[in-house]
């Protein structure tokens, strides 16, 4: 700990800035080339989850569906060999909301012991809507954070904090693109929670930076930031650690339904913690943040009197 306490964080900011820039660019490239593996919520289609007391052989299930209209279905074990999910893309010639039942009936012909655990059908228009609304929700959240931090702190810190949020969201989404993990609504929930978490971190540091500017003798902005980071380091690490612990508990014991959520969160907490130390402060420094940015301009009474 004491090694870290003496560490000059801001000296290394150019190195980490370069790493972050590379991460963001890499993520964007991945996003545009590989795209995202969007889940049922966003693409529309049907998902069927079945359970059996015995192991389910995917080949058997595959051949059961080959002669049906659902030969294009994607089959996967889900969590264990006793569970399987079947994903069917939206089909034109079959009444869409019946697909789940029909697929299950086909499977049951050759595997009568199957138990139907879950059917999810999302119509194409609902999928499109959810996709648009989710994108909008993310942008709205980022916008609101910008406004809040702008009002509470200084505009420079606001811009820096929101830039860090973009950084966090883009990198997490980039990791999802790299491994082609499925993005569903719970991942969106994680991204929004992550925005809340990461800005939380930035605000704590901003608070200390403001205090340090006001109360200490330090005048060099880089020194002030260094001091604030050192003061908050214990808190930053401990909070990240506790949050990370519970997210890991969710990931390993929370079941498949919250898997996407906990995966996105566990990456996000790490990225968010790093970015609030490096990205926010580096950008704020790069924008020539000074003591004056934190001092609230007093409004004199005369100004009000002049108003009609």
């Amino acid at each position, binding site marked *: 700990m004491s090694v870290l306490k003496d560490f000059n964080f801001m000296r290394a900011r150019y190195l980490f800035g370069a790493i972050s820039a590379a991460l963001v660019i890499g993520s964007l490239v991945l996003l545009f080339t590989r795209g995202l593996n969007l889940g049922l919520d966003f693409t529309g289609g049907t998902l069927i989850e079945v*359970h059996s007391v015995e192991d389910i052989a995917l080949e058997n299930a595959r051949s059961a569906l080959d002669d049906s209209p659902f030969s294009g279905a994607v089959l996967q074990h889900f969590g264990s060999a006793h569970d399987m999910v079947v994903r069917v893309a*939206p089909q*034109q010639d079959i009444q*869409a*909301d019946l697909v789940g039942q029909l697929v299950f009936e086909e499977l049951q012909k050759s595997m009568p012991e199957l138990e139907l*655990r*879950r*059917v*999810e*059908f*999302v*119509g*194409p*228009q*609902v999928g499109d809507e*959810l996709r648009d*609304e989710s994108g*909008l*929700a993310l942008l*709205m*959240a980022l916008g*609101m954070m910008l406004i*809040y*931090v702008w009002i509470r702190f200084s505009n420079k810190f606001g811009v820096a904090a929101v830039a860090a949020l973009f950084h966090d969201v883009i990198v997490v989404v980039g990791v999802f693109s790299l491994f082609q993990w499925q993005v569903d*609504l*719970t991942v*969106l*929930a994680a991204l*929004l*929670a992550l*925005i*809340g*978490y990461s*800005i*939380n*971190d930035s*605000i*704590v540091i901003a*608070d200390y930076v403001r*205090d340090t500017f006001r109360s200490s003798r330090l005048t060099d902005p880089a020194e002030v930031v260094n001091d604030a980071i050192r003061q908050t380091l*214990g*808190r930053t690490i*401990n*909070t990240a650690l*506790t*949050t*990370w*612990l*519970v*997210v890991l*508990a*969710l990931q390993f*014991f*929370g*079941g498949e*339904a*919250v898997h996407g*959520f*906990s995966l996105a*969160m566990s990456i996000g907490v790490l990225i968010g913690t790093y970015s609030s130390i490096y990205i926010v402060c580096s950008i704020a420094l790069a924008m020539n943040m000074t003591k004056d940015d934190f001092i609230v301009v007093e409004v004199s009474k005369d100004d009000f009197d002049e108003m009609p």
Partner: protein
Amino acid sequence: MTRYPRWKFYLLMAVFFVCGLYALPNLYPDVPAIQITSADAGGEVSANTQARVLQTLDDAELAHGEGEIIGTSWLVRLDSNEAQLRAKEMAEKMLGANYVVALNLAPTTPDWLRSIGASPMNLGLDLRGGVHFLIQVDVNAAIESRLEAWTGEVKLLLKDAGIRYRDVEVTERTRPDGEVERGLKITVAEEASAEDAATLITSKLNEFSFKDTDDLVETVELILTPQAIKSIQDYAVDQNRTSLNNRVNELGVGEPVVQREGADRIVVQLPGIQDAAQARRILGRTATLEFRLVAHEFGAGRAATGIAPPGTEIFPFKGGGRPVILRKQAIVTGDEVTNAQMGFDAQSGTPEVNITLDGTGARQMQRITGKNVGNPMGVLFVETKTEVERYVDEDGARQIRNNTTTEKYVINVATIQDTLGSRFRITGLDSPAEAAELALLLRSGSLAAPMFIIEERTIGPSLGADNIKAGFNSMMLGMALVLAFMAIWYKVFGLVANIALLGNLVIIVGVMSLIPGATLTLPGIAGIVLTVGMAVDANVLIFEQIKQSLKNGLTPLQAIDAGFERAFSTIVDANITTIIAAVILFAAGTGTVQGFAVTLFIGILTSMFTAIVGTRSIIELIYGRAGRAPSKLSI
């Protein structure tokens, strides 16, 4: 005593006591039960019926509760799921079609808790199993059929006013701004009367506004006003919701949800339902009946040609039988049916549906059948199906359209033996199941507009139970890890934070149980777990500040004061942003994800309270007693 304001202690104790009290019911697990409701809307379960059901259960040696009235239905508790299924079967067999028997869960909350209005948290479908449907109402179809009806009305009005017209037709065009305009186009015989027609119609039917067209003076265009469109939409969606509600009640589901969502959608949630396929079939069907006279003056040969004589229509007979020519005008339709019950013919034992008509329908039936004794009458089955189709338009853009097809066939032709009144029966049904379903559809009322399921989520009961287990396990593990970390790192202060954290959990559960609309879902549990992880942040901030203050040379008590004071604004700032994120998520998300937003929101608020007021109070109890100022803090 302590230096800390006393009212804060009392506030803390009061909040904890109230929330703890309302969190208590969650410790009592629900038991299986059967719920019996009268098939007649608003009907009650008579004492006689109750006694018979209990007697039947006694005879079968099934252990059961006393039975209790909840609203208009009657609930009997049972020991196990198997007993519940057997009891349901027996009750259904005994009570017949007059009562609906549903599987439900009965809370075991003790009476004294129930008397203060405490009840367990609502569990989402992903935790208790069940079906969720999002249904789209095709309001455009409703508008079109309403406009069709108006053409007749307009023609009559024109005739009465002595304005001669060539044609009245329904128009639809897309304005440049993308809005679709619908209305009627009247082509008058003489140019001079065009204005009269416009003034007449807009004065009689205020749903229309007049649209100036300067090119063709003998036509008048009337546009439906936005208010009129909205009222048709509202009517269609509400009417569909009502009949869905009736159908859901017929299905026998405990605590169903049928709610309008947005302008043209309806959400249906059926907790605990086992057979999703049946639910879907009954909810999605838009079948009704029409009774029409057979145009018997035309022989069967004419029907086979497929060319209908004027005023008639040709329909296939069910199952590929000979086509039948029916008159275009219906004597009565499914709309005039007030009751329909399945039954069996006394002689042949074949299934039938006994129908009761309302006053208008009965008079109409009486009038027409009275004049047509000896002539055949046909029963026409009408069903509308809508499918979603994706296609690529000329510009290469992806588009979606709905294909609506109407299927009509004759299920029965019978000779009118005598004048029919308000009650009669129809036969020609294949199976008791078909008869029962038709009776149900007729009872529950017709749909004002076609509709189709655009989203379905079915969770099997075993998956629901697994989800609860997974959620609970991960919460316990996450909690244990955090508690251990805090105790090791911050010692006594860590233990204090842990007490606050546990208190926070009780308060979250209490608040979730208190808010009637709040529902716990699996992502909701994730939200609680996450707030547990993030809640300690406030304490970490405070403790780090105290440590810093101690280092700066303050006395322990001063350090405690300074720590709480300095950390306060930081904590508030930091949590407000998470609250903003939760609110946005609630607005944008659907179903289970909203559950996450709710618990995150509640969790943030309660954790701020416990971390600031809760830990402070406990720390004051330990260190703050007057005359015993500590020289050292265990932090």
